[in-house]
């Protein structure tokens, strides 16, 4: 049962007498007010010549001056449009459908603009594919207003104009045509029919041009395996909603595996309906988002994962496959094979191992099972990088065969594992042009830099998967003198057509098939029934590459043999992309830097994750210091002679022993603000574009200071915050058992706490009564809501130092709880009573198990908008008060900053503005420059220093919906009321609405048996409710 389960947030909590944990438990604000900082040191005070009288004079004068100055109000100016655009009404938001396609993230999205400024990214729910914006996509709007953006083309470090650049490139193109040298375009994955057509036309004009697609984080193995089997270089598509049994082997499919965006379907299958939900078993080394959501997670080294995959194939196929596996894994595989064989087509097996054999076997398994969730007929095109071609290019460059290199959307000097070779090669290239949004390592060494458009300033199109098209349209005019690569290509071809017209022509000729262009542009997405041939730009290069890569089907037998005989190495490094940073394109985005990783809860860093056993063996430590911060040892990681020094270490529960994990995307130094030049660059270790490496890890001196929100706000011993149960209990027992309502004593009788009321309740049956439902089963912890909330509510970025001091400002946090099966007291008792060598071994193993490989639960927590809010009763100035619509209001201008409310809040969701976070050079993020401020939502106050703030349940959005209904003289329909988080949640985990509307979805969810409130025993009667997490454990 859920209630006797113990949850913990950090390793430190497991030791019963950790004084720091105890201290944090007692103190909401672990740091004292820094009096010393503003009083200065004693000697300084003694040495000053200012005596008391002078001091009083200064005080008097400044007070008088301040009050005099305050009497004169500032003069404000209003500058209307000269010619107001027809669609723009000041104060009314416009939405445009567009698409992000930056080579790593591909999604069909809506952009909210105010007075012509894009301010927010929303999901394009009408789009059939990739309609979910993840945290990075949500944050991408801020990258548009990056103050480090390039403002015009450059030659070296000098500003030039486009005409000069055009002339040079044209001259080079014409010169190389006869010189026998190649011109190479090295670009991101576009997956764009128009760009493909454009490149092939470009090649027709300049036959010596070849096109190399380079994915920073490659899916080459999966692409090659798919190509070998299905003849097309693409990735298979999966619909996890249709799968009842999901086996993931090293595939972080809730992260960025195969381009991501699988979480929506996955979540739909995870919500128990009619007693059924999907079962998910994950084999992995790092604790990934996917593993954290799995019903059963088995830790395996990557080398063992390969064997496990081969064995799984063998077991499903009835053949025997060799190889050594730990007993637990072997047992688990037997069980999986047995369960899958009950309903083979309902199962799906996916793998993220960077190995062609592994990918081929996974495809073979799904074909063999006839998996319904597996769809190779409409493959995804969002990864097209070809590592062989990239390596060939570097070779060619070094051999002096490349006359010109045109780059777009890539930063090879930063992200190539063999960047040094690339650099020496680049010196032999006559003309190099790098198109980029910002100054980076590659632009710094290129001869020319083309300042390119942000995607919100560009035209474009994407074929996300076969027949699923998406259009990109600009939502703002170019902020600077920039140009998108495609426009430049057109210009260099001497074609006067704008890229918009070019895209339109492509669509009307080969995609729309008679459908309306304007409608497609309005919808942002378009699905064709038949397949469409896009002219293949890669044809000439492909022939060159074919020699190296056999296009014949990989023989399964040999693949299995290769997999099963994978030798294990002592320490295996698994490189991964972090939820918040991806491949590192947006490293200059403060929202993403401050975004706490869903698993480690560390912001502003990347780190080496290591298992506790290995850490102890090698002497790595994680310790919590007095101010509540987390410190960690440093490590040096060496792979094949390439070493990355001083990597901070995090001890990660659930990390497979013998493995370490390190994320990409950090450690950028060029063209990035100093605050964000953090972390270490993992790309040098990404050798041969494989995320799995054999590594040597050694301890380095010193301790690293993390900005980790993990130990902050501990559970305070209230273990019933997360309620969870198993599918079996859920199906067979009464909900009173697995969703136990706390009892209190009333008139000497035990009654449910929810029925007791200290106060007279307010009648909320009239009008709207907003409630929010959060389904712990559907929530994958992806964090899109966190960034959406950031953007919608002008939440400030406070920086690493302040986050470390537990002064993070996120209104919405996603708590991550690890859990063990029993209470820790039971564990201790058990340990004491163990006897005999065998008995103690088994006992210890059992006890060790949950802590080493814990179960994980994610819980988004924002202000619970209690109907009996403890914060309201203690505010001395009535700055926080309740509305009849169920929202707990916070009047910032009334708040005097006593912080009583935060102390009295049982959910710890109130945030205090310790400083002025805007127009303050100490917090030099987007709110400190005019460009960055363009992202600010004009409907929400920017808070000042000394006031408390918290989630408002997006009252600006609910009020707008009400006003629109009033103006149109109609009632509000269900689904109209949304908050930023519910809008951002593509998984259906967060549902918002009016429970007085009985037909609404949220009212229905409130009647569900799984519904519970946080800390019901406190009697706060929150307006946010949760749904008990149900795990599909093996018993079910």
């Amino acid at each position, binding site marked *: 049962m859920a209630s006797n389960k113990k949850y913990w947030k950090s390793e430190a909590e497991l030791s019963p007498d950790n004084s720091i944990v105890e201290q944090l438990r007692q103190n909401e604000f672990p740091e004292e007010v820094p009096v010393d900082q503003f009083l200065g040191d004693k000697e300084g005070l003694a040495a000053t010549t200012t005596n008391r009288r002078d001091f009083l004079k200064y005080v008097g004068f400044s007070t008088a001056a301040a009050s005099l100055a305050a009497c004169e109000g500032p003069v404000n100016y209003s500058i209307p449009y000269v*010619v107001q655009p027809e669609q723009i009404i*000041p104060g009314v938001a416009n939405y445009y459908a567009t698409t992000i396609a930056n080579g790593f993230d591909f999604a069909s999205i809506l952009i909210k603009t105010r007075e012509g400024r894009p301010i927010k990214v929303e999901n394009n729910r009408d789009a059939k594919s990739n309609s979910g914006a993840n945290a990075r996509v949500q944050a991408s709007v801020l990258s548009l207003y990056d103050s480090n953006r390039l403002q015009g083309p450059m030659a070296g470090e000098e500003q030039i104009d486009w005409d000069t650049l055009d002339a040079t490139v044209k001259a080079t193109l014409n010169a190389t045509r006869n010189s026998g040298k190649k011109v190479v375009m090295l670009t991101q994955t576009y997956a764009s029919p128009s760009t493909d057509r454009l490149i092939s036309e470009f090649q027709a004009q300049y036959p010596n041009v070849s096109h190399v697609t380079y994915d920073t984080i490659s899916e080459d193995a999966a692409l090659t395996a798919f190509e070998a089997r299905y003849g097309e270089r693409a990735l298979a598509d999966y619909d996890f909603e249709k799968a009842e049994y999901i086996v993931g082997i090293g595939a972080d499919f809730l992260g960025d595996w195969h381009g991501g965006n699988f979480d929506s379907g996955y979540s739909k299958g995870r919500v128990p309906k009619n007693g059924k939900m999907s079962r998910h078993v994950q084999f992995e080394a790092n604790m990934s988002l996917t593993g954290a959501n799995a019903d059963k997670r088995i830790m395996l080294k990557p080398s063992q994962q390969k064997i496990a995959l081969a064995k799984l194939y063998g077991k499903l196929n009835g053949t025997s496959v060799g190889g050594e596996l730990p007993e637990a894994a072997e047992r688990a595989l037997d069980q999986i094979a047995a369960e899958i064989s009950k309903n083979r087509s309902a199962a799906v097996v996916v793998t993220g191992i960077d190995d062609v054999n592994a990918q081929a076997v996974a495809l073979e398994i799904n074909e063999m099972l006839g998996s319904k969730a597996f769809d190779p007929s409409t493959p995804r095109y969002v990864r097209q990088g070809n590592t062989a071609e990239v390596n060939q290019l570097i070779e060619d460059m070094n051999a002096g065969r490349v006359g010109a290199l045109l780059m777009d959307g890539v930063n090879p000097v930063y992200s190539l594992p063999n960047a040094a070779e690339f650099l020496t090669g680049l010196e032999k290239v006559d003309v190099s042009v790098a198109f980029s949004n910002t100054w980076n390592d590659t632009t710094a060494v290129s001869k020319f830099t083309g300042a390119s458009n942000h995607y919100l300033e560009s035209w474009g199109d994407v074929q996300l998967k076969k027949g699923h098209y998406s259009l990109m349209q600009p939502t703002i005019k170019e902020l600077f003198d920039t140009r998108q690569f495609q426009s430049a290509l057109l210009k260099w071809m001497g074609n006067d057509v704008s890229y918009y017209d070019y895209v339109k022509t492509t669509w009307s000729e080969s995609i729309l098939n008679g459908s309306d262009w304007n409608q497609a542009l309005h919808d942002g997405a378009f699905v064709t029934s038949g397949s469409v041939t896009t002219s293949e730009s890669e044809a000439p290069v492909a022939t060159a590459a074919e020699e190296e890569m056999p296009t014949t089907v990989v023989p399964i037998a040999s693949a299995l043999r290769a997999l099963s005989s994978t030798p294990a190495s002592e320490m295996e490094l698994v490189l991964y992309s972090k939820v918040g940073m991806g491949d590192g394109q947006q490293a200059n985005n403060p929202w993403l830097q401050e975004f706490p990783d869903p698993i480690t809860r560390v912001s502003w860093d990347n780190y080496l994750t290591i298992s506790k056993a290995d850490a102890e063996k090698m002497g790595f430590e994680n310790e919590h210091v007095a101010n509540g911060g987390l410190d960690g040892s440093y490590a040096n990681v060496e792979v094949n002679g390439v070493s990355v020094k001083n990597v901070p270490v995090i001890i990660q529960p659930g990390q497979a022993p013998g493995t370490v994990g390190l994320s990409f995307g950090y450690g950028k130094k060029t063209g990035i603000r100093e605050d964000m030049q953090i972390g270490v660059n993992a790309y040098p270790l990404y050798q041969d574009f494989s995320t799995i490496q054999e590594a040597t890890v050694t301890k380095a001196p010193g301790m690293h200071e993390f900005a980790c929100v993990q130990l902050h706000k501990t559970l305070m011993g209230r273990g019933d915050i997360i309620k969870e149960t198993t599918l079996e209990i859920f199906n067979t027992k009464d909900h009173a058992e697995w969703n136990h309502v706390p009892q209190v004593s009333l008139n000497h009788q035990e009654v449910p706490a929810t029925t007791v009321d200290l106060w007279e309740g307010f009648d909320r049956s*009239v*009008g709207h009564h907003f409630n929010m439902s959060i389904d712990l089963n559907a929530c994958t912890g992806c964090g899109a809501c966190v960034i959406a909330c950031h953007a919608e509510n002008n939440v400030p970025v406070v920086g690493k130092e302040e986050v470390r001091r537990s002064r993070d400002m996120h209104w919405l946090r996603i708590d991550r709880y690890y859990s063990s099966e029993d209470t820790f007291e039971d564990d201790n008792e058990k340990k004491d009573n163990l006897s005999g060598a065998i008995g103690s071994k088994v006992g210890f193993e059992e006890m060790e198990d949950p802590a080493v490989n814990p179960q994980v639960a994610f819980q988004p927590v924002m202000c619970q908008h209690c109907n009996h809010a403890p914060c309201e009763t203690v505010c001395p100035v009535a700055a926080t008060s309740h509305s009849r619509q169920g929202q707990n209001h*916070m009047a*910032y201008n009334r708040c005097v900053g006593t912080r009583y409310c935060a102390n009295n809040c049982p959910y710890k969701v109130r945030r205090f503005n310790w400083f002025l976070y805007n127009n303050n050079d100490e917090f030099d993020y987007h709110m400190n420059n005019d460009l960055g401020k363009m992202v600010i939502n004009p409907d*929400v106050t920017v808070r000042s220093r000394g006031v408390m703030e918290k989630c408002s349940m997006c009252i600006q959005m609910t009020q707008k919906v*009400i006003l629109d*209904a009033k103006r149109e003289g109609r009632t509000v329909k269900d689904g109209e009321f949304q908050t930023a988080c519910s809008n951002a949640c593509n998984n259906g985990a967060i549902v918002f609405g009016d429970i007085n509307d009985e037909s609404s979805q949220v009212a229905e969810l409130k009647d569900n048996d799984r519904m519970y409130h946080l800390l019901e025993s406190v009697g706060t009667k929150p307006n946010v409710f949760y749904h008990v997490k149900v795990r599909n454990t093996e018993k079910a």
Partner: protein
Amino acid sequence: MTVENIEKQHMKKVLNRHQIATVLGISLFVTLLFSPSLSAQDAAEPAAAETEAVAEESGESAGDAAKGKQLFNQNCAACHALDRKMTGPALANVESRLAEEEGLDKQWLQAWIKNSPAMIASGDAYANEIYNEYNQAAMTPFPTLSYQDIDDILAYTAAPPPAPQQTDATTAGGEASTGGGSGISNELILGALVLVFGILVVMLFLVNSTLKRIAEASGVVVEKEKVEKRTPIWKAFAQNQFLVLVSVIFLMLVGAYYAYGWMMQVGVDQGYAPIQPIHYSHKIHAGDNKIECKYCHSSARVSKHSGIPSLNVCMNCHKSIYEYKGNPEGPSQEDLANGYTNEFYTKEIKKLYKAVGWDETNQRYTGETQPVEWVRIHNLPDFAYFNHSQHVSVAGIECQTCHGPVEEMEIMYQYSPLTMGWCINCHRETNVKVEGNEYYEKIHEELSKKYGVDQLTAAQLGGLECGKCHY
């Protein structure tokens, strides 16, 4: 031409632009304008007769210039003036000019007016020339105009142009004399009052002296009482400690009251009337010409901002209205004292042209714009959310409720204090307009039953909750 005629023309133009269907209302308004000054109407007639005479003299078929003027104002004036280029060419003596310069006869003109696009399409040389000269702005075809109508219009264009300065002078004079008349009457009343008071005072003295004389005569001695030496009042006051205490407390309370009052007005900019870069008179637009507020401040209907009109909205009318010709009564004494002459206003219109980049002589936009930096008058603090559409569209509140008599404001100023107390008061007192709004139906029915009232105030509907305005 008389003031009324100018005014009529002026109004018509605006109304044509609006395409307001309420012709009845217009005619009533025009009639009202005309009715008080029949003599002016009479004066116009000889002029018309003269025009006719001119038209007849020119030997062409007779057109009625008076009727032509009416037709011209209705159909042509939006794009044409007699003596200057607008969207289309100046039309004074157009018929004779065409005949002399281009050798085109009246048939050509008639065909052009009735269907100009067809003529352009047919490849007529001059038609295409004029079409291209005026930025290919096609002239609306007027197939409904009869040949007689066209003759009338042409007759009007052939009439000699009026002399506007003259009218200005007379208007000013007339206004001055009436203004003077009212001044005299006030002084007369005051003088009479002073006189009455004087008489009363004199009478009082007379009565007093008479009584004294009577007393003397009858031997009554009016003895002046001997003034006893008393402690001066301030000393007595100082000795009475209780009184001192009370008065000190009283004074402190009064002081505190005024200090509080003074401090409370800090930041309240009621009456704030900054000088704007263009002297825009709400009185002329909203008052004299009765332009609906939301014609220019259109976003007040749908947005939280009322919106300062963009300059293209100004140009909707000011493309045709290039000079200020005075209101029907002419500038008042006060206006003249402030320098608000017609020339002054015309100069402000030129400022608009400069800002919007309108080349008057060529009737085209140059593209060189200078956005106007208006000084914002109503400055709500950033932490207060106010939505115009809620109040204007949903509640149906008149703009004047908060903004005061804007139609009388020569210089716009902040009429209301815009303090929270002021907002709250109104929310307490104002009933919510629920009629015909489906949104309110259920909530109003249930809430009014709960509170036992017929009409709910905004406060009862939750209009006092902090978070409704502060988020």
